[in-house]
């Protein structure tokens, strides 16, 4: 057996306030397919960014050996020159250029700045044959489906004489047929001696193509398992992925769960651009008064898409299904309608979708319920300031005054402002999407307390989170989603991280078998 093609030795990487990777080791043998698994935020993407030079040498600690030689990449170009190519989940193709132009973008067949179209087109056609894509090199990228775009990306990597191909969630956006083809191609490339790192949530795919799997958790290497000829059980991988201790303190609360408050029935949403893709598929769930219900799922499971499409059709196309409040069907076709029925959606993306960063705290808090501090269309600034000031105190928003611009606040404080905005709107149903993403532990605990209080006031609370301990600590009941479908519903008492992760990684194929 040949020596390893890649060795990453005790890689550590910190961001202000967070240690993203600590002493991670990764060894990829020559010509193998190596899978990396882990929860959202386990450090998979960070590790790949270190490897590909997105985080240049000097920005991390540790050592990278590629083909036995130490590497110090200063940018992506440098890593690509050595033959390490990463294909991100969000494809990096220029939509209105042709396949051939995309394949050689930044790497053109040219003489003194003049492109040789003959060489470009012949080479492109050759590469397309290699990846099994039956399209003219002149075809524009927009005219291709996602699956074929993925193949163009791989052709592009091959044009760079790739030796180690990194695929980040390559099948997340693909249907079963395209996924199968892609996995076959990976095995074919392996036969040609190209090593491959594949990051995936789909354990059945890993079991199919990977030779070994490295599991990351909380920025650390948990283990590397060689997959022998007998394969690997999904449970074995799941056991490694979870098992984080329930370290955070969750507020004690007396559960006073009332009647059914909010129901979603048979909800289906198509992708906004690619309408062939069903992003949420027949999802049904319900929340009672005073109950905190979680939705667990990995990236791309359709949780946010479900919530946003219910909240005034803010996502996707052709959303269909029923939304019921206290047993009566309600219309939520626009955001004002949804708010009017007492539904609030606290976004996972507070900077882009939650706050007006150039405006101050008070005006952000009042925005969704301005009418409450206004009469005859006239905003009472004093009343508005008083309201904001009371939220600043009760929510413990750390800012000099309520006239501080929200753009200058820390993540935790920004999140408190967004929460204040929606609490001020006095909703009956709160949908909280990743309410503690990217905020420090102290602020997390405060937000948990707020959530518990909201439930105690009789509100129906739906929490979407990627952190299983958070869901287990906070929720009364947890739904799991995978590939747009609700794959399970577990009462708090019966839920474990393992059981949830099992449901979260259940692909359409395997769940069909179970039905």
């Amino acid at each position: 057996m040949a020596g390893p093609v890649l060795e990453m030795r005790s890689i550590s990487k910190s961001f202000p306030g967070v240690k993203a990777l600590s002493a991670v080791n990764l060894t990829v043998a020559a010509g193998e397919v190596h899978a990396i698994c882990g929860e959202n935020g386990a450090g998979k993407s960070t590790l790949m960014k270190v490897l590909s030079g997105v985080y240049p040498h000097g920005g991390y600690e540790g050592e990278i050996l590629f083909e036995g030689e130490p590497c110090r990449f200063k940018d992506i170009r440098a890593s690509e020159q050595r033959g390490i190519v990463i294909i991100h989940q969000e494809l990096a193709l220029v939509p209105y250029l042709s396949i051939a132009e995309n394949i050689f973008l930044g790497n053109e067949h040219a003489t003194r700045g003049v492109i040789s179209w003959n060489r470009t087109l012949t080479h492109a056609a050759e590469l397309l044959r290699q990846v099994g894509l039956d399209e003219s090199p002149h075809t524009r990228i927009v005219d291709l489906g996602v699956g074929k775009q993925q193949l163009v990306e791989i052709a592009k990597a091959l044009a760079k004489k790739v030796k180690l191909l990194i695929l980040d969630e390559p099948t997340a956006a693909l249907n079963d047929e395209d996924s199968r083809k892609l996995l076959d191609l990976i095995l074919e490339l392996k036969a040609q001696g190209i090593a491959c790192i594949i990051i995936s949530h789909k354990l059945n795919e890993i079991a199919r193509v990977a030779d070994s799997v490295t599991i990351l958790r909380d920025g650390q290497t948990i283990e590397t398992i060689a997959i022998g000829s007998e394969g690997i059980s999904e449970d074995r991988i799941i056991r490694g992925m979870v098992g984080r201790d329930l370290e955070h303190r969750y507020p004690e609360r007396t559960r006073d769960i009332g009647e059914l408050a909010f129901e979603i029935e048979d909800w289906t949403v198509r992708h906004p651009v690619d309408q062939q893709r069903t992003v949420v598929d027949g999802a049904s769930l319900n929340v009672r008064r005073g109950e905190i219900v979680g939705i667990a799922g990995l990236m791309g499971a359709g949780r946010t898409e479900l919530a946003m499409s219910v909240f005034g059709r803010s996502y996707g196309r052709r959303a269909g299904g029923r939304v019921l409040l206290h047993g009566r069907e309600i219309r939520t076709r626009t955001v004002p309608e949804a708010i009017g029925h007492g539904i609030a959606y606290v976004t996972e993306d507070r900077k882009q979708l939650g706050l007006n960063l150039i405006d101050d705290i008070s005006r952000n808090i009042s925005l969704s319920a301005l009418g409450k501090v206004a009469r005859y269309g006239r905003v009472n600034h004093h009343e508005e300031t008083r309201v904001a000031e009371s939220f600043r105190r009760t929510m413990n928003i750390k800012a000099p005054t309520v006239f501080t611009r929200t753009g200058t606040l820390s993540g935790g404080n920004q999140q408190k402002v967004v929460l204040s905005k929606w609490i001020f709107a006095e909703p009956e149903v709160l949908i909280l999407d990743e309410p503690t993403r990217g905020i420090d532990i102290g602020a997390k605990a405060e937000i948990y307390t707020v959530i518990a209080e909201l439930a105690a006031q009789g509100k129906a609370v739906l929490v979407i989170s990627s952190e299983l301990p958070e869901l287990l600590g906070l929720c009364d009941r947890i739904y799991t989603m995978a590939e747009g479908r609700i794959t399970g519903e577990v009462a708090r008492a019966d839920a474990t991280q393992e059981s949830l992760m099992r449901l979260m990684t259940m692909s359409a194929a395997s769940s069909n078998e179970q039905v």
Partner: protein
Amino acid sequence: MAPTEIIPDSSPKAPEAGPSPSVGGVLARALRGNVRQYGMLIALALIVLLFQVWTDGILLQPLNITNLIQQNGYILILAIGMMIVIIAGHIDLSVGSLAAFVGAAAAVMMVDHHVSWPVAMTAALVIGALAGAWQGFWIAYLGIPSFIVTLAGMLLFRGGTQIILQGQSVAPFPKGFQSISSGFLPEVGPHTNYHNLTLLLGLAVLAVAILQELRGRRQTASYGLEVLPLGLFLAKLAVITTAVLVFTLLLASYRGVPIVLLILGALLVAFGYLMRNSIIGRHTYAVGGNEPAAKLSGVKSKRVVFLAFTNMGILAALAGMVFAARLNAGTPQAGINFELEAIAAAFIGGASASGGVGTVLGAIIGGLVLGVLNNGMSLVGVGTDYQQVIKGLVLLAAVGFDVYNKRRAGS
């Protein structure tokens, strides 16, 4: 009754604030919050002072002040609407052409069809509203970039102007119509050396301004919020009083308050109030600041944009008529480059190219900076070639200063 309540209300606070070192702190905080606005006000004052000295006092002579107001009235009207459009995150290139179009339509109605001038004016405002709504529809509901839609509008309305005027000027207008640009408040009462109504109006404005300040201060205090220390507050009142009185006396010693100034004053108060105090105004800032977030907060962002353009159409119509009245003719060449002047005024006055920032008062200040520069440079004999160069540099400097300031503040 109101003022007497103020003093006991706020004076107990003043001794606390007085000895503490926070006077400067409060002032600094007040300034910091509005660097751009105060900065432009100070810049305007400096430019006025510079030209006052340079022109040996001609700039602030009553006749010249009146001229300044009448020459810039229509740009200032456009600047108010433009500021709102820019706050909403858009731009309108069509306002010069639209102003010409509406001016021409009004001219044809009055001169060729002998429609009475109040009816013609009303009809013209409706035409402006419809034209604005037309553009707003394409921008807000069909999602076509405002740059494109209004560029099309610029051509469309310019062509329309030439069609309805058949390439010729249409004149003259009834006296009543002319007065919206060149008229003054009527002279009444005993003969003094001053214009009586102007003096009364000036005093009334002063009284309202002071009452507003006092009321605001009392309300702020009653909500337990921080107010300016008494000394600073009195100084502020003194500055306001002096400014209003001096301006009133200057105007009163010539022919009194021009009608344009009344129109402008009304627009400034109305739109200032709308943007600062109304829900729709607040929604406009939210849409310009972060449209997706505003949408998810329940703001009807399409309606906000639609209304901003409809309003721009109405104001363009008004500006077009004021300009036509000043020329006493509807001409195919009216309004050329007005859109650029209005956009420059808005940016000098504190608008941000990415939207969400700016005030109506800022637009007026920006417009005045440009107006005083124009007027002052003409008075000292700077050629129009150099005037353009200088105005270009001022625009660049004002926005550059703002960007620098933001970056220093840590973006």
